[in-house]
């Protein structure tokens, strides 16, 4: 089954005092991979500035904007359309965690995935909370991660405004309230604690279903499971990443995937408001099938 998505992203930034010099970097363009194909991509701002298409440190596409005017408010608009396939996971190939430990602890494995095994400032468990969630040796690695997914979902309450972009896990665990990035950070920390390479993924979420976090740029994780490969888990909604999840980029934590980074030379307050609109329609891949469908309809008439 294929799905056709239209995504609209709008940001409105206002500044108390005029900005003479600024640079914004948007990491919002969906990437092309096995399960998704980007058809069109449009980016614009209210000043019609020449937009530079660039990359970030990990090679994901970014848009960079440097206005040539003095500004006090600016609107950025992006529109993407893409085709998304359903993701099927060969979960029957996963071995028990006990059997996988050997491979997870082997040097070649650790060398290959070392970037996604180390803790960052945002994904370090406090020293007395290292055993906050334990894996079951007898279950498969995949099932263990599903259990972790559920545990994070239950442990944290989805609350907007309870945390900020620099909230560390020690505070998060105390308050157990957060948004998608906090769910993701907690999942990353526990999975890495069990030697599972885990990366932070940012992306869009289908808005037709009432998922948590679908009004913003969403985040979830991808874990590398031996014999299966990278598998996406969405702890905010206790589900696997599927055709509802449109990936933009991945990294070690939020800092690598922040959708908007800006360097602005000004004083005073500034506000950023953004909206995301994701619409999805089923897409019939087989043109012949659709023609048959139409002719059958005509006949019926």
């Amino acid at each position: 089954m294929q799905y056709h998505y239209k995504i609209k992203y709008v940001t409105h930034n206002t500044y108390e005092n005029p900005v003479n010099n600024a640079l914004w970097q948007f990491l919002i363009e969906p990437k092309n991979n096995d399960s998704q194909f980007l058809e069109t991509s449009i980016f614009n701002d209210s000043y019609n500035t020449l937009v530079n298409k660039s990359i970030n440190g990990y090679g994901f596409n970014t848009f960079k904007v440097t206005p040539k005017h003095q500004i006090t408010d600016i609107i950025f608009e992006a529109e993407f359309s893409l085709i998304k396939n359903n993701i099927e996971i060969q979960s029957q190939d996963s071995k028990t965690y006990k059997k996988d430990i050997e491979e997870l602890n082997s040097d070649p494995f650790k060398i290959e995935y070392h970037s996604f095994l180390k803790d960052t400032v945002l994904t370090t468990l406090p020293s007395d909370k290292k055993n906050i969630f334990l894996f079951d040796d007898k279950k498969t690695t995949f099932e263990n991660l599903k259990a972790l997914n559920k545990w994070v979902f239950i442990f944290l309450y989805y609350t907007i405004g309870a945390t900020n972009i620099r909230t560390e896990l020690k505070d998060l665990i105390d308050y157990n309230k957060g948004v998608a990035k906090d769910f993701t950070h907690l999942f990353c920390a526990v999975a890495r604690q069990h030697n599972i390479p885990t990366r932070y993924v940012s992306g869009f979420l289908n808005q037709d279903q009432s998922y948590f976090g679908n009004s913003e740029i969403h985040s979830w994780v991808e874990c590398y499971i031996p014999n299966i490969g990278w598998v996406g888990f969405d702890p905010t909604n206790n589900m696997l990443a599927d055709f509802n999840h449109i990936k933009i980029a991945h990294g070690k934590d939020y800092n690598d995937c922040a959708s908007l980074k800006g360097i602005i030379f000004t004083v005073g307050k500034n506000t950023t408001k953004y909206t995301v609109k994701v619409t999805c329609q089923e897409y019939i891949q087989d043109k012949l099938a659709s023609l048959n469908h139409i002719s059958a309809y005509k006949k019926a008439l």
Partner: protein
Amino acid sequence: MESKKILPIFSSYKTNPVFYDEIFKNDKEIRDTYGELFKLFNEYKVDDFKLLNEKAKLSFLNQGITFQVYDKTTVEKVFPFDLFPKIITADEWDHIESGALQRSKALNLFLYDVYHKKQIIKDGIVPIELISSSENYLDQMNGLEPPGGIYNHISGTDVIKHSDGEYYVLEDNIRCPSGVSYVVSNRVALKRAMFGVFNNYPTCPVANYSENLLEIMQSVKPAGVDIPTCVVITPGIYNSAYYEHSFLAKSMGIELVEGRDLFIEKDFVYMKTIYGPVKIDVIYRRIDDAFIDPLEFNPDSVLGVPGLFAAYKKGNVTLVNAPGTGVADDKAIYTYMPQIIKYYLNEEPILNNVHTYHCSRPKELAYVLDNIDKLVVKPVDESGGYGISIGNKLTKEEIEKVKAVIKENPRKYIAQPIMALSTHATFIDEKQCFEPRHVDLRTFTLLGKDKEFVLKGGLTRVALKEGNLIVNSSQGGGSKDTWVLKR
């Protein structure tokens, strides 16, 4: 012989048999190399010499050759300069030069490897932990091809002479090694102060460093550039090495810029000038990795250029040295240097390594904790002599403190036997005579595309406090001119 007579300013010079003294074989005999120099110093009375010394110091101050120490106050200090030079014979120098070059090349190959296939780790020579737990390893550098395949264009290798008369490497500095401006200005100051001294000593010049550095920078220009435009980028006037940055830019004939002077458009780097933007191809950056690009690294940095890393990643600009080199000048990597040299170059190391204990290994940690009074404990990722504790100088309470600190984070510390740094005659202002003081030597090695250069000379750093072994300028060290003799 007249020249062997001990001068009045040398009358209280007492050599210590524990250390190798570079001037005196014993209390009476002078080493042959220094014979002629002694004859010359013989002509000075103490007062003459004092005056000479004062003038040399003043010339540094007047030229603005100063540095800052990071402390509560910011005081501009003159880097103390000693008129009595260190002399290295041609044979001795060949040994140091080939050793320093060998290390730089091996480190470069090591860096290429850890940011690509990581074969040395797969082959079990270096443990993965050294990379995965290093704060200086940049994931963003993975798979990136730096122009010419060079990461550490500029390396500073610190060597010392042990009591056995052999040279040992203390550490390799391949992030932003500083000190080369002092090498050149020390020579200028000495030439002015001691007119004619070089008639007796055929010494290799050091002023050619800048032209070689420029050639190295030009050799690693991005693909598709004919005549590269090079700049030096500095954090600004408040940086402790600002004089050096301005000196290098001036002597290479290129612009000295700060982050705000550059901007990025379409992933190319431009410099703002009164004639309009000028495209920049090679940047000698004297800003730490974390601060070069606020979009990619420390977001609070105002020193760097937003978007610079993307331009670098796309191959439109070359950064000298490459970001992420810090992973290899980690003091924990230092201990693997003999194996690293053997692995990549299939050669025996020319310069000796000091034996090192890793506190990350339980057995060695136990040894370190038991013998802390005989060891120097260093943090692996600090530079400038910060955080070092020397066992035999500590009180009992301090020893307990150090032990607690090590136990808290063993990976962060290494320990080495206390090395007997050689001593050298140094004029002590308060006593108005020469006394032996500990010295080390920083050499400067340049690597470019099909080009290499080792500065014939270096920065001899001297610990001015009696018995002190830490020579870093930030810890109250001074410097001497270093002469490498021609054949």
